[in-house]
């Protein structure tokens, strides 16, 4: 294991990075290390963990805003929010079960650094949409603070959001400020069984064009649905297409009726009540329907209407198991292990249908050998290099994590 640094203050972190930059020593940045198994492996002489940068520094429930130091565990953030009946809007996904890490360990910094949002993204937006302020240290060891604690802020460029999804390759965040929302009074789930992919996505799209504010729209192919915790759904041996409504009780009831009425051509609907809904969507959030196995896990973002076609195209080359989230706009795709992670096929098909694909789970050797993130067009590649150089000219932060020579 490399030299492990646990800075407890911004200046300490600055100092460590300055030292590394001077010696051009590569640094791996981890929060709790929960997403370490994702992306290309980083060979860092020094590992910096934000684990000691802990604590909630500001929480104003009446203004729907919270600031936390980057190493604060997500669980702590969420339980603090829960005391005031609030939550993170974007339902951060927990990749632990799918990638073999413990679940519930991730840090709030890591959540924003990876910008992985769960089912509610279609209704409320992504992690990046809720990040409004950030403090951090870049590869030049400069401490910077951008954005702020107010919701609306266009003072200067939106670098804050730009750091979301940068996987620690631009800067180490030491504090993040984000928007939160109230928990809905209740939730209900409407489920249709046994639909083929294309019909299911059609159903989800129809539901999402109705003014009922669907806050979760997923489709699980039959083998995936068989891993659900809900005993009734698990044993059906059928695909599961589910829609979530969240609001105050009478609104949920009315909207559910409206929704079912509009979707009745798709067959009879099952329903999950509030408690069952929490469990059902909690499971999806932990991705436990895609358990850790030697197979590969890809995450593909595309247009909902093309998603079933894209999956069908890949299926011509290899067996697939699929969990569609975001009304079809996100595909969690499980395919058999392969030395090249089947990148050629998957990337070609994605290119034809439009979108981007990330390899989430594969052996480290495989991840080191292939392009894990979506390859860049020449124009964007130039900008990507520029951005990296602007933040981290020596290339010491998580080198190679996103792109082989960056």
């Amino acid at each position, binding site marked *: 294991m490399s030299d492990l640094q646990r800075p407890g203050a911004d200046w300490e972190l600055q100092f460590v990075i*300055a030292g590394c930059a001077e010696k051009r020593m590569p640094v791996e940045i981890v929060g709790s290390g929960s997403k370490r198994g994702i992306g290309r492996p980083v060979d860092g002489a020094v590992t910096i963990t934000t684990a000691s940068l802990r604590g909630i520094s500001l929480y104003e429930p009446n203004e729907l805003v919270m600031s936390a130091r980057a190493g604060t565990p997500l669980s702590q953030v969420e339980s603090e929010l829960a005391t005031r009946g609030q939550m993170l809007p974007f339902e951060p996904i927990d990749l632990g079960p799918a990638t073999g890490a413990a679940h519930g360990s991730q840090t709030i910094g890591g959540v924003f650094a990876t910008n992985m949002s769960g089912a509610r993204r279609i209704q409320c937006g992504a992690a990046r949409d809720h990040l409004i302020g950030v403090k951090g240290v870049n590869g030049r060891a400069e401490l910077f603070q951008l954005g*702020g604690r107010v919701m609306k802020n*266009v003072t200067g460029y939106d670098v804050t959001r730009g750091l979301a999804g940068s996987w620690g390759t631009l800067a180490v965040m030491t504090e993040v400020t984000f928007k939160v929302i109230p928990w809905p009074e209740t939730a209900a789930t409407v489920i249709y069984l046994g639909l083929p992919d294309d019909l299911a996505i059609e159903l989800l799209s129809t539901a999402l064009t109705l003014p009922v504010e669907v806050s979760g729209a997923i489709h699980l192919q039959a083998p995936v649905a068989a891993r659900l915790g809900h005993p009734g759904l698990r044993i059906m041996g059928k695909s599961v297409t589910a829609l979530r409504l969240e609001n*105050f009780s*009478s609104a949920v009831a009315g909207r559910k009726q409206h929704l079912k009425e509009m979707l009745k051509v798709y067959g009879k609907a099952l329903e999950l009540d509030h408690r069952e809904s929490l469990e059902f969507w909690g499971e999806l959030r932990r991705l436990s329907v895609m358990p850790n196995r030697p197979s590969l896990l890809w995450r593909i973002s595309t247009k909902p209407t093309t998603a079933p076609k894209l999956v069908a195209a890949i299926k011509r080359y290899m067996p697939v198991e699929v969990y569609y989230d975001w009304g079809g706009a996100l595909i969690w795709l499980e395919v058999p292990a392969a030395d090249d992670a089947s990148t050629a096929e998957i990337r070609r098909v994605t290119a034809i249908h439009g979108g981007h694909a990330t390899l989430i789970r594969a052996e480290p050797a495989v991840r080191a050998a292939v392009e894990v993130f979506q390859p860049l067009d020449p124009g964007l590649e130039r900008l990507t290099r*520029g951005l990296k150089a602007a933040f981290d000219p020596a290339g010491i932060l998580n080198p190679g994590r996103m792109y082989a020579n960056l």
Partner: protein
Amino acid sequence: MPANTCNRRMTVTIRYRLEHPIAVLLSKSMTAIGGAAILNFCTRRAAHLNFLKLEPPMTLSRMPEPDRTVLDRSEAIIGELVALLGADGIISREEGRRAFEADALTAYRQPPLAVALPRTTEDVSKLLKYCRQAGVKVVPRGAGTSLCGGATPTADSIVIGTSRMNSVLETDFVNRTITVQTGITNLAITDAVSAEGFFYAPDPSSQLACTLGGNLAMNSGGAHCLKYGVTTNNVLGLKMVLMDGEIVEINGPYLDSGGYDFMALVIGSEGQFGIITEATLKIIPRMPFARPVMLGFSSCEAAGQCVAAIIGSGIIPVAIEYMDKPAIAVAEAFAKAGYPLDVEALLIVEVEGFEDEIDRLLRAITDIARNFDPQVVEASTSTEHSDRIWKGRKAAFGAMGRISDYYCMDGTIPLARLPEVLSRIGEICAEKRLKVANVFHAGDGNLHPLILFNANDPDEAIRAEQAGAEILKLCVAVGGCLTGEHGVGIEKRDLMDIQFSPSDLAVQMRIKSIFDPHWLLNPGKVFPLPAQELGEQSAADEAA
């Protein structure tokens, strides 16, 4: 070991210090530039602090010196532009150029060298490529409704206006997206999808006229962004032309970015990264009903507490708007919306949903409001009434023009500090012997104090600008920011170092240099001028 560490830390610190733009500026200017820049800088600082009274240039911010070599070539440059776009696409005569000398902040005026009105992305690409080669600066312009001088030209720049690029390219109702050219007006986007029951969420009060391009450049918000977010939360993909003419596509009709989130960086870049020519946007199914309720209070404290209590209760209305007494009077004169004229503070709270949901929400909201002793609680009675209530609010700035010139501020503050900030704003304006009216997005703390002044009185104009600067400093001091939705532009650029440290600014300026290494796009905006000059310099150094 300690000694060693200490040593290392020292060198690191010094290095770090030297990398600070201001430090570098000092050292550089002392040697090469010979102090001129410092002098300049100090004068301006002094002006800020009111040590030095500025003479007639009625504003505090100066624009960069025009590039003589460009001005000398102006005829040749115009000839080239005409060759690229045809005479119909270029405006070069004096009178015509003057019509483009200002946006909605008329305190800053400067006719450009020429104006180009392209029709396609390819036209824009040709123009930028030429300008880059010829070293000519470029100012993108949408509808010119910017309130911060974002589209103000310089004498040596070409204005590239997108007004002719206003087509809808594709609507996709199943996937809930629309792709448009960026010269389209904000309202026209909603008009294009409303027959199918959709709308495009960000709704700046200027939505009738402002273009999507301007909205993207400023990351504009609006009354309804409390629920639906601002521009950056409603865009899926962009097509943009970089300064060298290269056309890049950033994301597309799918969610999130596969790599770095360049879209986040470009939205809100105030026209300094490239010219955005097309965009794919999220469209949202419109709720069947929406209804505003008007809540009138005898003090701004009560109104502020009421807003906090509503949000704290777990209800997020679509909009919570605030007007104070002077603003109510003006808006009422224009819209005849039936606003109560005798309250100190009026909240317009709008909720949406199905009919019965609205009733329930309005009941909950009025119940909360009753704890704060409201003088007026009145829900809209019809769609037509709702339209008038919103018409008055949305036209409040313009309607202010009926009684006076105004200078519109745009700071954002944490809601809890509202009463204190409002009373300070009153004091600041009183000290400067100016009147002020407040209209703002209360749900997210985005203030719009309108400082009333006489633009033909240079002294009053300066006082207005000084009052504005103090108000913005106050916003930052209480934990807020300089601008919530209008952008920095020229107007607030010299206040940027109140909110940002030198390294904060350096981080931003380096990103500018990636997109536009020669700093040709929208010059003189966003950063304090000395910092800009330095940014340009260091970009050039780094390139060399």
